[in-house]
């Protein structure tokens, strides 16, 4: 997961790296977009996920989004805003948001924000 952060830090380092790394973080499986959420989903990182998720949502025939929190240790309200924003996009076409591998901390934040009604859990 640190490659995502490294990539962010060297953002002036050229496009090629970015595309390659992003393919690892964003996968399309059938009509699902699977997003490997970065280690720290804050304001800065949420902007990246939002932008690329939306790019893939336009390009492909994706219906649902899976956010895989396996490697995520930190999330704040920026992450909540990003998830709710994607929910609004996919749900208008009957799509779902699925949350995978969320640890206790991430679950707590999602529950506190009242997101538990919008999402499905996969473990």
């Amino acid at each position, binding site marked *: 997961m640190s490659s995502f952060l490294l990539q*962010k830090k060297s*953002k*002036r380092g050229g*496009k090629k790296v970015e595309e390659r790394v992003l393919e690892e973080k964003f996968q399309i499986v059938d009509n699902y977009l699977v997003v490997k959420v970065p280690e*720290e989903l*804050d*304001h*800065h990182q949420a*902007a*990246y996920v*939002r*932008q690329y998720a939306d790019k893939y949502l336009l390009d492909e025939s994706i219906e649902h989004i899976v956010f895989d929190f396996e490697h995520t240790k*930190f999330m*704040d*309200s*920026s992450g*909540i*805003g*990003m998830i*709710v*924003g994607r929910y609004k996009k996919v749900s208008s076409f009957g799509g779902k948001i699925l949350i995978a591998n969320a640890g206790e*901390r991430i679950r707590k*934040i999602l529950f*506190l*924000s009242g997101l538990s009604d919008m999402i499905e859990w996969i473990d």
Partner: protein
Amino acid sequence: MKKEMKLEFDALPENEGFARVTVAAFLTSLNPTLEEVEDVKTAVSEAVTNCIIHGYGFGYEPVMDQDKEPEGEEKPVPKVYITCAIENDTVSIEIKDKGIGIENIKQAMEPLFTTKPELERSGMGFAFMEAFMDKLFVESNPGKGTTVRMEKKCGHSFRKADEE
């Protein structure tokens, strides 16, 4: 004995991470639980993000355009100011900006209230600060800036006393 720490840094989103990590490191001497550390990090992240997005109006330009070098003269970047103190088993954290300020603090603190829905803000920032810290005070002067003060009891001695 009281310990203090001050931080002053550019109000840029990429500094949010180091701000919360620095405060978390300062906390170490209280021997906090992992959960307490996470609580403080989240609260600091919320307050600092608010200074940057709302206080100084730095939302987010599309990420893909950030590769471009900024054109023209560079404006000085405004600052975020953090002061932390540890006294006995309590940490107090003050996070301040000199930005636009808040007109109606009571309304701003209501869960789900946001003035920036177009930036996909959820209005949960103050709610998280309240949930994760023991005390929260907000002071603001429109046009002058905003100061958030938070306190939390942390650490081993506190846990022990609680269990007895």
